[in-house]
């Protein structure tokens, strides 16, 4: 009786490892399926013309996603211009601030913003920018994306700057440099690779965002006639074409998905390389 109990415990112990391993492997199966589908369906759309042409109406082959690429670039660029100075400043503030009610609530507000559903940020950008201006615009889309970027930039900046040793700052101060020059010329350069990593991660995050752009950069997501709107974006074009009933447009959307996923993964990879090669380490 006792021996069989021990045997069971041993067998179950081994079985449990196999179950854990099996479930772990199962959970990355979707990753391969998604990659497989996107490469299978999307790769054939990728021609040189795909990058320079505008989307064509249904029935005409050879459309491209030039407007979406340019639009995405524009949206991300303006979002960076809006979010980077503020985000880095707040990151510096939090890294340098003593722990008190104010700095804790600023940190908490960043956490809340980080977890906020992106669709809510889209609504806010609509109410703050689109409604007063009376028109959908790239600017409103960038405002929404900038709000989404902020918490990532703030957090990575703060975390990086906290790694900069105090002795480094003390040396600078001892040499007579004022506090602001110490931060700008000593602390920030020492942590620059971490900050750049944070920027890349946040760009990767917003480059694939669709929900905040639905009511800001682009009009109605269900009207697929707005093809020549100046501000389209990769995720929007994927969404609008994916839910359309036409195979031509599906092919275009698969192609756009292919481009988007390569872009996002490349950004993630680049941020990894930078944070490994130029690690902030003292």
């Amino acid at each position, binding site marked *: 009786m006792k021996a069989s109990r021990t045997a069971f415990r041993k067998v179950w112990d081994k079985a449990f490892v196999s179950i*854990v391993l099996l479930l772990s492997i199962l959970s990355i199966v979707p990753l391969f399926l998604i990659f497989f589908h996107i490469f299978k369906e999307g790769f054939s759309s990728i021609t040189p013309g795909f990058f320079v042409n505008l989307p064509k109406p249904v029935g005409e082959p050879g459309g491209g996603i030039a407007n979406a690429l340019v639009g995405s670039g524009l949206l991300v660029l303006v979002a960076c211009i809006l979010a980077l100075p503020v985000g880095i400043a*707040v990151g510096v503030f939090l890294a340098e601030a003593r722990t008190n009610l104010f700095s804790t609530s600023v940190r908490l507000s960043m956490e809340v913003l980080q977890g906020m559903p992106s669709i809510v940020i889209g*609504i806010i950008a609509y109410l703050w920018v689109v409604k007063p201006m009376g028109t959908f615009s790239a600017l409103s889309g960038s405002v929404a994306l900038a709000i989404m970027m902020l918490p990532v930039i703030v957090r990575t900046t703060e975390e990086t700057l906290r*790694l900069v040793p105090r002795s480094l700052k003390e040396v600078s101060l001892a040499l007579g440099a004022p506090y602001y020059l110490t931060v700008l010329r000593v602390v920030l350069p020492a942590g620059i690779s971490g900050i750049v990593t944070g920027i890349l991660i946040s760009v990767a995050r917003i480059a694939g965002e669709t929900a905040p752009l639905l009511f800001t950069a682009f009009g109605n997501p269900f009207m697929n006639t707005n093809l020549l709107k100046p501000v389209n974006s990769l995720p929007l074009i994927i969404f609008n074409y994916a839910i359309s009933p036409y195979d031509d447009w599906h092919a275009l959307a698969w192609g756009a*998905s292919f481009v988007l996923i390569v872009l996002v993964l490349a950004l993630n990879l680049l941020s990894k390389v930078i944070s490994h090669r130029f690690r902030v380490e003292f």
Partner: protein
Amino acid sequence: MQAHNPPNSQPAVPEARAGDPTPSVRPVRGRFARGEATFRWALLVGAIAMLLLLAGIFVTLLIGSRLSLSKFGFRFLAGTEWDPISQEFGALPFLVGTLLTSFMAIAISIPFSMAIALSLGEYFRRGWLSSVLRSMIELLAGIPSVIYGFWALFFLVPLVRSLEMQLDIPPYGVGIFTASLILAIMVVPYSASVAREVIAMVPSSLKEAAYSLGATRFEVIRQVVIPYARSGIIAGILLSLGRALGETMAVTMVIGNRNALPDGIFSPGNTMASIIANEFTEATDEIYLSALLEIGLVLFVVSTIINVTGKIVIQRLDRPGSGSPK
């Protein structure tokens, strides 16, 4: 200064000293004075702006939804009728849709995320298997949600449709169940990464004590590792719940967009996020827009509560003395 930062005896956080704020300096005079003042002001203004941003978002949603708040009151959350034409708005179907999809997604994802957390945090902490698995999970977290939705529309929907035909129920393909499936795939990396961190933090002395009493590895995991890491695991699940509640694109694409109470888990429905995505640009009446904004407000409040709770649980873990590997 020094009094606030006693030498930290925790070996796990050697950089604690590095994170000290810059020592306070005498007020700067002379040619640097202006730069100094401007710089300090800029930082402070930026930080205040963050608080104003969050407060502004809340107030904007509150003001935007006041029409609906005053007209429907509590009925808004309990009503099942969503009819823009007769201007009757009740958000219960979307509340139910959101809760159903999120909780089903979490339920489906837990075995998988726990398996990953145990693999990476306990069984295979080093080596090629762990680094491959870890990068795969990171990739999974990096895929944009619109691509998840697109893939689900063309892969999961036909799959669910054939399942529904087998079960002899209306083969919509799209619906609550499909949305839960794609959400489950999307949230696995989130709960897994938090759980992995706390599982890896379990002190080896505790585990060794259990081994020395004759426990098998499974018994150590069940009776030492999991209880020790429980609050961290819960925090991870809360964070992924927060993400599931607010997820818009993937859900919108596969949930079927039906504005009525779902009849079952295979029925088409709508979530709070997907109804906003679908109808926001069509909302021409003030009361219609206001009702949608109230849904946004509910989404904001719920996700804030969940995220803050999760963060508080995690913060408790980070405190010194909560245990670190020897």
